């Protein structure tokens, strides 16, 4: 497991991104012309291609996540996290949530991650500092998490979700978001605006030099 495997995993991230770009026109060609003319994605029967895309994304996500679990170096963890976040963003595109995908890339991969790296640089004496964890702790954590994962998966797989059958599903548009944020979700929207302001002030206050 080791270095080679990690390198391969790292390489897969740009590969997945490239793949998504490559498949985008194919998908558009499949779909209803009138909708694709408007630049709106629809859920055509993606079939094999969609499945391949999904497995690629899921693979990258989980592989990078697993790599984070194993890694002992904080900078490498951050880089793997980028892989996870980017793959999740691609998954959002697959789920026809274009806007969320873009936001995920911009805010998470672009902003939060940079913030993390800055945090690493500002707080560690050396970026390669390692903190060893006791083996017993690792084992306990592994057992608990495995149990947790197993039960959750059991629920997820066996549950019958009350889903609406989907005919042709139309992707979300910016208009929907704009209207939603200013009508139904106005209160949380305003609340979150205030929260962001408070966080901005609070973060600046906490991080300032005395």
């Amino acid at each position, binding site marked *: 497991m080791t270095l080679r495997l990690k390198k391969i995993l790292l390489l897969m991230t740009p590969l997945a991104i490239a793949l998504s770009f490559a498949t985008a026109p194919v998908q558009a060609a499949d779909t209803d012309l009138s909708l694709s003319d408007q630049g709106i994605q629809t859920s055509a029967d993606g079939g094999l291609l969609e499945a391949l895309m999904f497995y690629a994304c899921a693979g990258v996500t989980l592989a990078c996540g697993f790599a984070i679990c194993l890694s002992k170096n904080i900078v490498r963890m951050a880089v793997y996290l980028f892989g996870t976040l980017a793959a999740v963003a691609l998954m959002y595109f697959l789920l026809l949530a274009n806007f969320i995908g873009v936001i995920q890339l911009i805010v998470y991969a672009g902003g939060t991650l940079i913030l993390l790296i800055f945090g690493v640089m500002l707080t560690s004496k050396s970026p390669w500092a390692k903190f060893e964890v006791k083996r017993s*702790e690792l084992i*306990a*954590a592994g057992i*608990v*998490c495995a*149990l*947790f994962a197993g*039960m*959750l998966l*059991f*629920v997820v797989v066996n549950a019958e979700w009350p889903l609406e059958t989907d005919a042709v599903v139309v992707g979300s548009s910016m208009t929907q978001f704009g209207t939603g944020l200013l009508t139904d979700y106005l209160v949380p929207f305003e609340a979150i605006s205030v929260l962001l302001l408070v966080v901005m002030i609070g973060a600046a206050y906490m991080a300032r030099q005395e």
Partner: protein
Amino acid sequence: MGNYEIALCIGVVAPLFMFAVLAFFGHRIGKPTSGWVAVIGVLASLGCATYVLAGWLSATDKAALMATTGYDWVVLNLFGNEMPIEFKVKLDGLTVMMYFMVTLVSTCIFVFSIGYMAGHSDEVDGQCKFHRFFCYLSLFEFSMLGLLISSSIFFLFVFWELVGLCSYLLIGFYFDKKFASNAAMKAFITNRVGDFGFLLGLMLVFVFLQTFDLDQAAANFRHQYATGTGIFAADIDILGWHISGMGLATLMGIGLFCGAMGKSAQFPLHVWLPDAMAGPTPVSALIHAATMVAAGVYLVARVFRLLTPDAQFFIAVIGCITLTITALIAIVQVDIKKVLAYSTLSQLGYMIFGMGVGAWPAALFHLITHAFFKAMMFLGSGQVIEGCHHVQDMRKMGGLRKKMPVTCWTFFIGVLAIAGFGIPGMHIGLGGYFSKDEVLAVAYERTYNWEDRFGGHGKDDEHGAENAHSDASREDDLILRSGKVILASGQAHDEHGTEEHSADEHGAEAAHGESATHGAAAHDAGHGGHHDDPVLAGIAAQQRKIPKWMFWLPIIIAYVTPFYMMRCWWMTFMGKPRDEDVHHHAHESPLMWAPLIVLAIGTVAASYMMFRPQLGEAAVIASDAPLVVAVDGEVPDKAQHEMLGLSHDKAKDPHGALVGIVGFSWLIGMGLAVLIYRNGLELAERIKRLPLVGFIHWCLMEKLFFDHIYDTVLVKGTRSVLAGISNLFDMLVIDGIANLLGRGTVRIAEFSGNIMDTGGVDGLVDAIAESTQGASEMVRQPQTGKIRNYILFGTTGAVLVLAAIIAVVMS
């Protein structure tokens, strides 16, 4: 948007731009330059104002020029119909005149400030405050001009609050001094009280008239009056207090007026203005004499069409009280700025009073002349204070005439103007001679000639009062009565046959122009300022006769005003120097006296030139209020008839009827002041020692105890009520519980103490202690203080819960 509207907008935005520049780069621009930056902004506004004014004056068809253009800011979907909140520029005679006045006065004051603030902006926390002053001034300029061009009462309110904020910032400019920051807070809080009423009025307007646009609101108001719908159909019971439609409309008017009461510092909210003199003197001149405090009067002028007769009467009463008490207080003040502050209050009282009695053009005319001469006098006092090194006490001045001649004589022009200097019979006079006396003349007509006018309706006041609260069944009666009014005014018409014809044409044009913009409601209700409009006449028929005291009090104060102003001038500039040190240092500088001369010229010009007739025009075109009265001979004749004006020949000249009463008040008042203060303060001191005078003097020195009353009733009252409540709570609840527990414990101890003690208490105690220790040792183990362990435990808990749920569901 036409050129003029764009010019108005540019004029508004220019100071805002300079505000931004000064706010961000002010500290780099430096001391004198940042002042000039602000001056550039306000000069741009003045340029725009001049352009618009020139266009307005040269236009032959003013109705065509009048406009309300802009866009919908927000369209609300309320009450089942769409209600746009419009962001629109209003262009009419009133806006143009006020806009020009504000920009001109503030240009002078900005220039003056550069000289004044050089010596008055010390550093605080190592930061020079000079640029900050001009930064605030620019923001104020922006807000004030925005207030003037708003066509929507909503945006008017927004700018209204902005000027209030600027006023707060500038009063508290020396915030490192306790009295200044206190004064700023006082002004702000007092204004909040008024603005609360304003807000209530605004809500009533919004709910019942369903629009914020002033013209549209007026049209809706009249339509609702004519049809008895909307606010006039209201029938509300609040706490057992029945409010009929007319009463609610009156409350709406009074609510809107509350805003004006706060900003224009009318009784009982007048207490903040004298304290506001803690700000720098240019601020007092600009905000607390010329522009912002006049905004209240402007507001009343704007919403005049929404005022019921009762509301107008209320306004008149408030104005009358204010102008009286403040003028009396002004007599005894010794601080030069305080004298000016109280005289400002008194003059504002005159304006509000004028509005209340229906002297719409006269009150606005007085506003404009007052702005010029009061700004000039404040700047003069600033010059004096600066020259005397921050001495404001007039008792230490005297004899400054030779040291600062320009200040002295421009100030004297101001004194003449406020005193109402003029020679009856000839067209010579200054400021108040035309404007204040016109207000008084209208009040005279409302008091003594009202019955002739409305066929004796003024006589039965009770009937009118009942009618004010009329319900639907009285509506017919109203129409009948208004029919009589038409008859009465019709006779007046016949006297001026041909002129009236042209007037009608003009009105028709106005009606046409406006109904095109304001839609069907306005059209149905009928538009234009005709007094044969049954709706208008119906409202006007309810106008009351003014009680006699409300006419005579302003007349008496017209004698008091020249007295205290002359006293102020004489104590400052004439006589012998009373303090050698102050006198020795006195000087004046050109940057500061040049604006004084401009304002002096402005004062003279404002008294004679374009403002008055233009306001008359504005009254004709813009105001289709139920009662607008004007008496000045200078108003074009056509305007005379279109307003519900007084067409008595004798009333045309304000001094025709009043020459014996008020014509020479300036001479008497000023003469009395000279007689008393001719030889310094000795005579005044001797008068003060007379028995009754001493008491009155003490009362006036204490500002008639308003501050004491507010302090005792409101501030201390609130505190003591809260303290009482918490005391009561302490005594009843806390003490009660404590006592109950105490007694209960004693009883239980008495009852069972012996058994418990002698029984196995010790063993039990030991057992409990040991088990506690053991348990805590056990519980302590997982409390490692390490966050990661906590996460692990939390997850374990989640796993257990999940397992339990799964187990339950599966089984």
